[in-house]
């Protein structure tokens, strides 16, 4: 059974329709890569999954359970939204670490406020996650003392600390200097090896080919092509061909 089912998702801002009916499913442990040129609606899609935007139409199911249904007139309360969004994690393009807390506290803050365990368990878990992203030696550092790549790895550990079923990445390396993207991609790769279910928006085509179990190409609010990693080498859709050609 699919861990994630998205059906007929629509979202507009005022009169501009940004998502015009998005459908896809994702199996547990799979990695979905979303490709598409800027302005196509990729960020909006991830933001809808994380309830930062509320879609006007569509259904979202996680593990077979409906967590969002725009047709169901019962409006979600803030606490239901808070509970539901914990199915997902989101890693932002611009990291958004909390500047006033050190690395360890950035990772433990949410689990302790949400009472996800004893202080000791939470700290221990955070330390494990930081070692997983290669930052054990930076626990006491503040975000301003870290490189972009290190900050993004902390952000990944912070998202993992809440144990999301599905972890979303919105262009995780776009804000990084080229020499720093590798370390972040390596961490994401290692998550795949530990069977994390992920949705990744990226412009790193080689990486996408390498990591994707499934690829969707989103343009102008619709999915124009979907398939496995081979669509990158043999695209059918004209726009996808043009899109891919712009990288070579």
């Amino acid at each position: 059974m699919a861990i994630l089912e998205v059906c007929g998702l629509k979202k507009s801002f005022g009169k501009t329709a940004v998502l015009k009916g998005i459908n896809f499913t994702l199996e547990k442990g799979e990695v979905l890569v979303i490709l598409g040129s800027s302005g196509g609606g990729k960020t909006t899609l991830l933001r809808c999954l994380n309830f930062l935007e509320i879609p006007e139409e569509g259904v979202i199911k996680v593990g077979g359970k409906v967590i969002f249904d725009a047709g169901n007139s019962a409006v979600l309360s803030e606490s239901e939204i808070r509970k539901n969004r914990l199915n997902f994690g989101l890693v932002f393009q611009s990291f958004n670490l909390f500047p006033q807390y050190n690395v360890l506290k950035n990772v433990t803050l949410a689990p302790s406020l949400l009472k996800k365990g004893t202080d000791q368990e939470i700290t221990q878990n955070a330390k494990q996650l930081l070692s997983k992203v290669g930052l054990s030696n930076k626990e006491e550092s503040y975000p301003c003392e870290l490189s972009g790549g290190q900050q993004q790895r902390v952000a990944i550990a912070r998202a993992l600390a809440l144990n999301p079923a599905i972890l979303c990445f919105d262009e995780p390396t776009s804000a990084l200097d080229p020499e720093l993207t590798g370390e972040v991609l390596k961490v994401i790769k290692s998550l795949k090896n530990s069977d994390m279910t992920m949705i990744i928006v990226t412009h790193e085509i080689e990486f996408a080919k390498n990591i994707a179990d499934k690829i969707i190409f989103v343009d102008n609010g619709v999915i124009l092509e979907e398939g496995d990693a081979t669509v990158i080498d043999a695209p059918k859709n004209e726009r996808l061909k043009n899109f891919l050609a712009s990288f070579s």
Partner: protein
Amino acid sequence: MSDFFEQFPTVFSALNVGFLQTLKLFAVTLLGAIPLGLIVSFGSMSRFKILSGATRTVVWIIRGSPLMIQLMIIYYFPGLILHNPIWGSGEDGRFLAAAIAFIINYACYFSEIYRGGVQSVPRGQNEAGLVLGLSKRQIFFKVTLLQMIKRIVPPMSNEIITLVKDTSLSRIIALQELIWAGESFMKGSRGLSGLIWPLFFTGIYYLAFSALLTALFNYTEKKLSYFKI
């Protein structure tokens, strides 16, 4: 010179009395304007266009006109125009009128600083808190508040140092603060008259008090310098 040393104890004790009144006005203004500014800033950031528009207009008027005129209006308007001298004729009434004028004026300045502080926190901070399942309350107190405080400390310091010197404007309604006390030795007070140096000497009080506050604010800024925003 020997005159100076004879005069000094008398002048010094009179200036201290005036300075006490200055300090009182300073403290009461802060106590009133810091929270009132918060309310004004909520008004000016309100989603209700009428409320935010009205609040911003009031703030614009208060910030755009001299505090001295505001003081005079608040003090003289009830008595001279409405023929209802609510402030009475004593020092307590003058103090109350001065305190109200200062609190309103400074609340407007503070509200703009607060608004700047709130709006300076990147939207991503709020969103990072949201996707981590935090409530709005938790996000405010655990994520954004300290960032706002760090952002508002330098402009608040400037305003508060300005307030130290602005208290002297209340001389215009004859509040018996430091300038008034210094000036009184020109006309005659406590058996001394025709003296100008006591008025000049008041400058030392303002300088010393500003220096003390500056040191305090520098310390606060340093305490918050362990992180960058």
